């Protein structure tokens, strides 16, 4: 199961996802002088999604550093700082703006260690407020985890609960390599029970959120909650769905997924990124290549984002990403042999 460092857990309190991240950042800033936060308007403004909040007042403007609107340069400064002894946490205001910094993320941060034959490590954490559902349209709503997941040298995670958001961020801050953390904007206000104090959660393990026997649903980020809701409906219909929270896109926890599919014999991948060449394509291929292939009783289904830029109209926006109904109907068709 998951590595929660229980020894240091003090008590468990309710926190929002954003508060849990802020708590992790606060602990890191307090205990490690090498940690600096960098990003646009993360100081007195508190961050576009109020994740850094008031941290600048507690830790000062040298540790909670407002950058100019310079994604490429800012990311590069974070890379250089990480390679020379700091532990920067770089916040993109919206994950979409990371496209301006792809050169530093993919050509520099991801490759520096390898190109130099192991002579350096780049302990860089980047945070990406991602996803749709806020009416922000095509340039402020994307899910780019598969883009970065394609790059060896990066680790890419998508915590779906406040508890994981904090534990995985604290673990990322101990990691010697670049860790990209995708935070769905719809999750920021969701609440959950979170241990106070320092604990870490592994970056490479999926988590079974609900046990089941008829179909495996591998979901990521905000799709985990939707899949759990779908599973509840399906249970009323006599279908027992197992819901796996993927949590990490690179590396993908092959073992947990393959074992589940061997048990349930059916697989649905649910993710918000564009369906084609996305995370679900990788999971499907991984299962098709595995010993679980012989166990499959039905075709694999991918429920992913539409093959379109994210639209503005609320109904269109909903139609562009998987919803609970889509998961329910796909799973029932699959389990009734209608596919």
């Amino acid at each position, binding site marked *: 199961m998951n590595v929660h460092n229980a020894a240091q857990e003090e008590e468990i309190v309710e926190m929002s996802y954003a508060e849990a991240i802020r708590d992790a950042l606060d602990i890191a800033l307090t205990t490690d002088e090498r940690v600096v936060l960098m990003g646009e308007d993360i100081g007195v403004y508190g961050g576009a999604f109020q994740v850094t909040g008031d941290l600048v007042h507690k830790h000062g403007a040298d540790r909670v550093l407002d950058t100019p609107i*310079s994604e490429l*340069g800012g990311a590069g*400064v974070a890379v*250089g700082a990480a390679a020379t002894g700091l532990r920067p946490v770089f916040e993109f205001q919206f994950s979409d703006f990371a496209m301006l910094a792809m*050169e*530093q993320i993919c050509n*520099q941060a991801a490759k520096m260690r390898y190109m130099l034959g192991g002579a350096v490590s780049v302990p860089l954490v980047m945070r990406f407020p991602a996803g749709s559902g806020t009416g922000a349209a095509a340039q402020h709503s994307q899910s780019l985890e598969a883009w970065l997941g394609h790059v060896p040298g990066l680790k890419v995670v998508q915590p779906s609960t406040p508890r994981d958001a904090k534990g995985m961020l604290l673990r990322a801050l101990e990691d010697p*390599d670049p860790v990209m953390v995708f935070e769905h904007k719809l999750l920021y206000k969701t609440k959950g029970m979170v241990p106070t104090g320092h604990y870490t959660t592994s970056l490479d393990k999926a988590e079974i959120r609900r046990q089941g026997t008829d179909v495996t649903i591998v979901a990521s980020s905000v799709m985990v909650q939707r899949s759990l809701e779908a599973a509840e409906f399906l249970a009323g219909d006599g279908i027992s769905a197992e819901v796996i929270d993927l949590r990490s896109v690179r590396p993908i926890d092959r073992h947990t997924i393959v074992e589940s599919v061997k048990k349930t014999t059916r697989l649905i991948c649910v993710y918000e990124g564009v369906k084609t060449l996305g995370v679900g394509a990788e999971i499907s291929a991984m299962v098709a290549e595995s010993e679980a292939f012989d166990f499959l009783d039905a075709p694999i289904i991918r429920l992913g984002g539409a093959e379109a830029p994210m639209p503005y109209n609320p109904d269109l926006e909903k139609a562009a990403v998987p919803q609970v109904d889509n998961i329910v109907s796909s799973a029932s068709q699959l389990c009734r042999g209608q596919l």
Partner: protein
Amino acid sequence: MSKSKKANTPFAIANYERQQLVEALRRMYLIRKFEEGAEDSYMRGLIHGTMHLSIGQEASAVGSCMPLAPDDQITSTHRGHGHCIAKDADIAMMFAEFFGKETGYCKGRGGSMHIADVEKGNLGANGIVGGGIPIAVGAALTAKTLKTGKVVLCFFGDGANNEGAFHEALNMASIWKLPVVFVCENNKYGMSTSTERSTAVANIADRAAAYSMPGKTVDGNDFSAVCEAVNEAVEHARSGHGPSLVENVTYRWRGHSKSDRNRYRTKEEIGEWMERDPIKSFAAELEDHGIMTADEIQALEADVNRQIETAIEFAKASPDPSPSDVTRDVYTEAAQ
């Protein structure tokens, strides 16, 4: 460092010890002969890929690194062999890298375009034009935040000064007053495109004004002039006053890379610049000021030649990496 001993004495002669000056000349010869050796090995098929030679630019590399302390850091470029040697790299490990060997600086994973020597403070050449500029600023942020006292020197070309990364990085270095020195090696061309055709200002150092930092254009083939300008910039940075931009005007004698058919420069232009050999003029200066005799200079050159031969032998005899290690060092910790 004592201030100018004699009026009209070149800065370097007046301010550095004999042994430092001899070492500077030795490094300039090492760069020239290392690159000639690399070129020769390439022709013989011992090195694959491509490479970017800096022959003709040696005074810029060595003069810029001269004012640095051993643990100061640099970022380098695709034309980075000279920077690496100027920062005191071991040429045997450099050759081994070019030959793709496990004993090379990057264990054969990087080659010429990623040559680095992190222990000596060289954070690496870069295959991306302008890629190292923000990274240098990040290293300077580390120096300032952790109060290490280090200065970071960032090499880049005239071509790189038109990248967005240049603008973003110089602006940040300036607003945060970071200890970084930007050294533009203006060799007049980015591949085939001249600065006249690519760059809206007459001198790249003019752009310093846009970032409220000192900017200076110097003769990049004059070792002492480079030392003086960079020294001032290093002292400015070390004393907490922030970044500067120094432009070393120089020239590469060879083509851009191995694919260059030389369709954009005249023989005359190349010839004129070869007349202004930075190594010859520095050697003459040392002789004129009684620092070294002609015999001593010859002996130094011969010594460098022997060192090159030994280094190439080391590279040839070194083991290749094992194909089974192709994914080693992608991550710091091996996957379970």
